[in-house]
């Protein structure tokens, strides 16, 4: 049985490539697959029927079946599920609107862009993460331990980052998106494994040694970036296991200290 399932958009491919580079017993058996495009995940793509997740998008369903051997997901049969979705913001920060608009703090002065209020910005982010959050929540409600995986920061080489003013706005938009998306997942009770600060260069872009070899790829990381993220996932799971073990131990001690008649049967003294 798979212990850790990692699925999501094309950034999952990088994680799969990274997994070939290192051994992580805690995650094993590990299954990683890209089952959708980022676009697929921004609209309704699944339904829960009797606790089982059925994918409504035919292409997603086909890819899930190719990966898992079954076209649906039953959260009760899953232990850890990592989702590569929702934290990827290239679609957001590269949009043409940011040449005319900007978050309030960056809109004034010489930039002369229409300001976007914090509340409107948050509403935009919420629209982007709505379906990933629903998906994560459905898995978690079914009993799986779910976390969302951070995506690489913007590429310095992206055409949208070449104009100095656009660069300032888009980098700020990207950072703000990640913060708000992570907050939205957390508010829904879903943990986020953030992209480590070491993956960023001093200007806030993806470090050059973590960029893919193909220059036409303008938003993924490379296998080394995958390794970075898998290590973060490993660390996250270790902490979660320790927290869980600690909780179990505290519950055991509380039960042992309770009056004899209130203890669970296993902890009662045998007369």
């Amino acid at each position, binding site marked *: 049985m798979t212990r850790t399932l990692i699925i999501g*958009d*094309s950034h999952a*491919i990088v994680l*799969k490539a990274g997994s070939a580079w290192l051994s992580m017993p805690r995650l094993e058996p590990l299954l990683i*697959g*890209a089952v*959708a*495009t*980022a*676009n697929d995940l*921004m*609209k309704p793509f699944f339904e829960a029927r009797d606790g089982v997740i059925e994918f409504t998008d035919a292409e997603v369903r*086909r*890819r899930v079946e*190719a990966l898992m051997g079954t076209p649906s997901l039953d959260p009760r049969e899953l232990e850890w599920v990592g989702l590569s979705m929702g934290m990827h913001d290239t*679609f*957001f920060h*590269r*949009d*043409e*609107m940011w040449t005319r*608009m900007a978050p*309030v*703090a960056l*809109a*004034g002065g010489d930039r002369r862009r*229409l*300001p*976007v*209020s*914090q*509340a*409107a*910005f948050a*509403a*935009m982010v919420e*629209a*982007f993460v709505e379906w990933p959050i629903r998906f994560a929540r459905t898995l978690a409600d079914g009993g799986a331990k779910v976390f969302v995986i951070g995506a690489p920061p913007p590429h310095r080489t992206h055409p949208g980052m070449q104009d100095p003013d656009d660069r300032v706005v888009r980098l700020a938009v990207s950072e703000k998106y990640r913060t708000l998306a992570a907050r939205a997942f957390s508010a829904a009770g879903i943990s986020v494994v953030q992209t480590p600060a070491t993956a960023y260069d001093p200007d806030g872009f993806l470090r050059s040694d973590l960029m893919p070899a193909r220059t*036409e*790829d*303008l*938003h*993924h990381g490379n296998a080394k970036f995958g390794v970075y993220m898998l290590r973060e996932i490993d660390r996250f799971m270790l902490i979660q296991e320790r927290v869980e073990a600690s909780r179990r131990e505290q519950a055991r001690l509380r039960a042992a200290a309770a009056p004899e008649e209130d203890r669970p049967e296993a902890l009662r003294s045998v007369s």
Partner: protein
Amino acid sequence: MNPYSRMPSRAFWRSGVAAAGPLEFAELYEPRFPLGAEDRISTAGSCFAQHIGRRLASAGFKYQDFEPGPPLLPREAWQRFGYGIYSARYGNIYTARQLLQTFERAFGEREPCEAAWISDKRVHDPFRPSIEPEGFADLDEFRAMQDAHFSAVRRLFEETDIFVFTFGLTEAWRDRRDGSVFPVCPGTVAGTFDDCIHEFHNFAFAEVYEDMRTFMAKVRAINPRMRYLFTVSPVPLTATASGQHVLSATTYSKSVLRAVAGQLAAEDDDVDYFPSYEIVTTPTSRGLHYRANMREVAPAGVDLVMKHFFDMHPPPPVAAPAAPWRRPVRHPEDVWCDEAKLELMS
């Protein structure tokens, strides 16, 4: 023979209205000037004006939006944030005084005593209390958004060819200290009502007329080519603070507004009046054009109004579709990253 014997059927109630039924009025409206495909049209006013702007835009007229919503904001959220409702994000402008005040504030001619309402660390605009549902994050955001708004309003009045304004109310709440009027009573949507500061005022014909004349003179000074298309909202008052029955108060309010619109149209060649009020409220409709609450205009009522409008102002040949919320478009780079990469995995 007498003067009535040569008059057309539209001059007589029986043939012009009673026999016509509630759905078709022949020769009800004769435009004073055409709406051309190249005329830049802007809208403002009370709730009913929202329908007019929306329909003009979807019919392909050159409808202006000087403060457009962020394209990545879902369309269903636009209204909540006051985007896409009128040609700038000023919310409902119910009274003539509020229209004049909007112009004066945008051009730096007026600074109200009550500039912001602060509660629970959120900031509301007393003059646009509904445009940010939870209020602005702080005073800096409030000021930045207000500056951008006034800049949009200035452009609107400088660059508009035809300004469509729907008169809504004569009743208003105002600041005793400087006479600034609020779109809604302080303490209802936001803010706190203070009897010592806020007072009720029901504008009379002369005041509404004078405010409109002043407004038009100010606009003419910066944009002499702007023409006006006035309508009166057929939406009755939700409530009155006048002490009268709300039915009487509504009749007073609409009568004054209709009379002012008529007077302005009679005096000024650059003013036209479109009788949407009459189409919806005619006795022959027996309330047919209202929703069940007998206040809001039903979609079919709006359709009827706009049918009469477009009969006389035919839309340009090629209608430009209204901009929907744009899900992020697929870039060429995505074709490689999402599709090609996924194919590698299959």
